[in-house]
C-alpha cells in the first residue's frame, strides 16, 4: 500500500511538472508568435518587416543548438572559432529563409494544439496555420535552456528544419571535410543576404 501511494505521488508530481513545463513552453511560443504577427501587421515595407522581425526571432530561436545539431558529428571537428562562424552563418541562412515567407500586411492565423512533453525539459507544440489560402501543420520543438524556453527545431508538414540541413551539411562534409562545409555555408549565407 505504501509503495502504491509513493508511486501515485511520484506520478502526480511528474505529470504536474510536465504540465507546468508544457504551459511555460506554450506561453512563451504564443507570446513570440503574437509579437511576430503584430510586426507583420504593422510593417509598411518588406525591408522594414525584415529589420523588425529579426530581434524577436533571435530571442526565441536557439541558433547555437540548431547549428550544432544541423552539423552533427562534424561539429566536434570544428575549432571554437569555426563553430562560432558556423553559428553566425547558419543564423543568417535561417533568418533570411524565414523572413522571405512573410509579406507585409498578410499574417497567418495560428491555431495551437495540445502540447506534449517528450523528455524532461523538452516540449513539442503542434500548430496549424492558415496562410495565403493554404493550411500548414507545424510542430515547434522547444527546450528549456537554463530556465528559458527556446525553439530548437521547427517541423513543417513532417519536414524538420534541422534534419534537412543536417543531410546537406553531411553531404558537404563528406566531400571535403570542415573547410568544404564552411565554404558552402559562406556561399549560401552570401546568396541569401
Amino acid at each position, binding site marked *: 500500500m505504501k509503495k502504491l501511494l509513493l508511486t501515485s505521488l511520484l506520478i502526480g508530481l511528474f505529470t504536474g511538472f510536465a504540465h507546468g513545463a508544457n504551459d511555460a513552453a506554450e506561453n512563451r511560443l504564443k507570446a513570440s508568435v503574437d509579437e511576430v504577427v503584430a510586426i507583420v501587421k504593422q510593417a509598411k515595407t518588406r525591408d522594414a518587416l525584415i529589420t523588425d522581425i529579426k530581434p524577436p526571432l533571435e530571442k526565441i530561436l536557439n541558433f547555437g543548438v540548431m547549428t550544432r545539431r544541423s552539423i*552533427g558529428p562534424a561539429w566536434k571537428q570544428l575549432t571554437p572559432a569555426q563553430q562560432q562562424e558556423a553559428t553566425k552563418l547558419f543564423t543568417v541562412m535561417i533568418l533570411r529563409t524565414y523572413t522571405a515567407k512573410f509579406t507585409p500586411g498578410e499574417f497567418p492565423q495560428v491555431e495551437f494544439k495540445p502540447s506534449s512533453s517528450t523528455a524532461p525539459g523538452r516540449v513539442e507544440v503542434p500548430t496549424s496555420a492558415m496562410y495565403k489560402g493554404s493550411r500548414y501543420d507545424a510542430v515547434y520543438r522547444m527546450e528549456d535552456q537554463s530556465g528559458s524556453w527556446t525553439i530548437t527545431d521547427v517541423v513543417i508538414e513532417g519536414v524538420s528544419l534541422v534534419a534537412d540541413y543536417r543531410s546537406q551539411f553531411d553531404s558537404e562534409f563528406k566531400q571535403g571535410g570542415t573547410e568544404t562545409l564552411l565554404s558552402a555555408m559562406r556561399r549560401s549565407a552570401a546568396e541569401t543576404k
Partner: protein
Amino acid sequence: MHIPTSRRSIWSLLLVISGLAFAGVHAETTSSNQTKPEVTISKTAKSGKEIASPSNSQEDPGDDYANIKHIPDPIEPVNRGTFWFNHQIYRYAFKPLTKVYKFAFPQPVRTGISNVVYNAQYPCRVINDMLQWKTKTAGLETEKFLLNTTAGVGGIFKVSNKFPCLADVPYNDTSITFGKWGIPNGCYVVWPILGPYSLRDFVGFAGDIAEDPITWLTYGAGTFGTLSIATTTPRITSRGTDQMDNYDTLTQGAVDRYSAVRSAYEQNHKMQEQR
C-alpha cells in the same frame, strides 16, 4: 517534388528509365549520404535496408536526428544528373509558367481550383482507406466529399474545414497503402520532370493515376475529350504551382539542393505513412 505533367506523353520515356532504376535496387554500393563511420555505412547500404545517420547523441541527448532512416540511394550520381536537368526545367520553363498562372488567377481563384481538384480525387483516398481497413476514416472522407460537393459548390469551398472532425482527415494514396502493407521502399530515384520517388512510391503513383476519375475522362472522346482537357489543365497547374512554391522554399539558399530535396521527401513520406 512531384511535378505532374502530361503523364501519357512521358510514359514511354519513364519505362525505359525504370529498367535502369530497378537495376539500381540490386546494385551493391558504398555510396550514401552519410559521413562516418564509413564501415558501418558500407555494410548497411549493401544490405539494401534503410540506413540511419551517424550519432552525436552521447554528448547531446537532445540530438535524436541520428535515428532518422534514409531511403537507400545507390544511383546517386545518376539521380544528381537528373536533378540538375529537372532544376533547369523548373527554373526556365515551369517557374515562368507559374508566374503567368499566378498573374492570371488571383489567390482565391487558385485556392478554389486546387480545392475542386482535391475534391474530385476523393475516390483515390477512399479506396486506399478501405484497402487499409480504415473504415472510420473512409466514412469521414465521404462526409467531407458530400459536404464540400454540395455546400461547397462542387468543392470550390472547403466548408469541411469549419468542422474539426473533418478538417484533419488524413490524406491517403496507394503509396501509403503499400507502406502500411509492409512493402519496402526500394531505392530513391529522381525521375525526369516528375521528380523524386522511391520505387515503391512510383508504382503507387501509377496506382493513383488509375484510381483518379480525372484520368478516366481522358479516355473519352468528343464531349468527354473536351471535358478532360478542362479538368486536367487545372489539376496540373494548381498542383504544379503549389509544388513550385514548396520547391523554391526548400532550395533557395540551400547548401546542397539535391540533399535538401531528398531529405524533405524522405521526412514527408514518413509522416504520411505514420498518420
